[in-house]
């Protein structure tokens, strides 16, 4: 038997490619048909390859099958239309279906599909689900696992999203001229959320989270392949994702517990990704604007610099100051205080922390406990108790309980 092996996730990758190209040929309102044909293509492989061996060029084999199925589908459709509408469509439809599965055409259609699924008429959570489905080839159960919800909810979400696309007659295209900027912003926001779902969610297993991050990187990379979407913000977002992804392995211990930045084994940081992050950060800086993504990417860059230099934390602090003026989120406020503590000491950070209206945020109490740990362990323990009360997941509860245990032991042996 031939020792030919398939690359992992081949079907998943090709699903997104085939669906995008077929939807381009059939129209966005026939997205379901495109998806069915892609599934049937893999089913054909499933019923053939085990017995006849894996073909020499699996991708070309899949494309041939998909092309045949698509042309059969189009012929059936035409026949149906002629019968139902009684129209003589011969002149307009007797063309060989041109299903172009070249690399260039696949990339173009995936980029167009990205704009389609991120259309503002579709709610954001549905945009992410639809992107995972039609661009990343995730199954319904895999999307449900990523969102910690059930299959029915995902199915409903996808169904509604597709109806919105039909109702608004959304075309498969990269919008031109004045329409482009707001649509690109919406695409970037969705990709940022997709990445965050993988990176920050404490609720999922490490493999699912990593895959979400990598898919977000892959889709963002598509934007850089087209001159009109290769913008400052696209490069900055990709840079941010690369820097963060470089720490994906170091952020979790072998037992699957979160490892704080300062405790991470820096040899587990992915230097290739750090280099890529730096490359795209430099590309982003060619434009004379500064976006939220650029500030976040710059902060992420400084976090890849090892050690505790004064320059590092002063830079991080001023970047957070700038970020808060454009995007004042609680997470940014709290992270700024970590930098402030490094630059001006715990007492200064504590004074500012007390003014923040974040008393039901467990990260806030974790920060307070860190700032008071050395000077007032009793207060630190009290903050940990509050953090324990407000945290949302089992992993966090275990993590905080362990900290409480350590601090309580220290207090007793004092």
């Amino acid at each position, binding site marked *: 038997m031939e020792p030919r092996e398939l690359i992992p996730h081949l079907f998943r990758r090709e699903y997104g490619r085939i669906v995008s190209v077929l939807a381009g040929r059939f129209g966005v309102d026939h997205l379901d048909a495109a998806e069915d044909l892609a599934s049937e293509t893999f089913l054909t492989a*499933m019923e053939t390859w085990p017995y006849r061996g894996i073909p020499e060029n699996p991708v070309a084999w899949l494309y041939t099958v998909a092309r045949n199925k698509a042309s059969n589908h189009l012929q059936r459709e035409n026949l149906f239309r002629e019968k139902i509408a009684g129209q003589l469509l011969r002149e307009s439809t007797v063309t060989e279906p041109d299903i172009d599965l070249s690399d260039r055409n696949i990339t173009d259609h995936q980029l167009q599909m990205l704009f389609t699924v991120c259309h503002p008429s579709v709610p954001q959570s549905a945009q992410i689900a639809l992107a995972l489905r039609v661009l990343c080839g995730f199954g319904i159960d895999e999307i449900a696992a990523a969102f910690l919800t059930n299959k029915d909810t995902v199915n409903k979400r996808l169904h509604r999203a597709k109806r919105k696309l039909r109702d608004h007659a959304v075309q498969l295209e990269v919008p031109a001229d004045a329409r482009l900027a707001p649509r690109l912003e919406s695409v970037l926001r969705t990709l940022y959320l997709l990445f965050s779902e993988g990176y920050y969610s404490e609720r999922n297993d490490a493999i699912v989270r990593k895959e979400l991050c990598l898919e977000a990187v892959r889709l963002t990379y598509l934007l850089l392949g087209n001159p009109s979407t290769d913008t400052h913000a696209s490069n900055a977002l990709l840079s941010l994702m690369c820097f963060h992804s470089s720490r994906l392995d170091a952020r979790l211990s072998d037992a699957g517990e979160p490892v704080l930045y300062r405790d991470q084994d820096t040899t587990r940081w992915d230097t290739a990704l750090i280099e890529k992050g730096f490359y795209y950060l430099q590309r982003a800086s060619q434009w004379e604007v500064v976006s939220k993504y650029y500030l976040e990417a710059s902060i992420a860059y400084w976090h890849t610099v090892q050690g505790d230099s004064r320059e590092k934390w002063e830079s991080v602090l001023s970047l957070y100051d700038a970020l808060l003026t454009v995007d004042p989120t609680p997470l940014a406020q709290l992270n700024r205080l970590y930098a402030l503590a490094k630059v001006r000491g715990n007492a200064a950070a504590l004074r500012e922390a007390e003014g923040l209206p974040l008393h039901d945020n467990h990260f806030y109490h974790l920060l307070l406990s860190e700032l008071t740990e050395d000077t007032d362990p009793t207060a630190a323990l009290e903050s940990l108790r509050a953090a324990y009360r407000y945290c949302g997941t089992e992993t966090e509860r275990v993590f905080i309980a362990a900290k409480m245990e350590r601090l309580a032991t220290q207090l007793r042996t004092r």
Partner: protein
Amino acid sequence: MKEFILIFRHENANGQVSPEQMQQWMQQQKAWVDGIAAQNKFVGGTGLLFDGAKVVDHNKLVTNGPYGDIKETLGGYVIVRAESAEEAAEFAKGTPILEGTGNTVEVREIVTH
């Protein structure tokens, strides 16, 4: 040595199964077939597609199918060489098709002459 046909019966799961899952099943099924072939006991086999399937009844009425009452239908077959139906059934236990609850493999001896 006799020949046995192992007939797979399963539901049409199109649209319900993710591409990732299909790739895994395909590879498991291939490993299973390769294992039988390595013992020189694999005669042949194939999968059967659902697209465009038809059912013809005794009135020569042709319908698209198989749908309706039939939940499980023929999904493919493999022919193996074995000393006995028991040995052939042992082979059958290895196919990933049986991971689907409700899916079955029917083992039947083939008349060879």
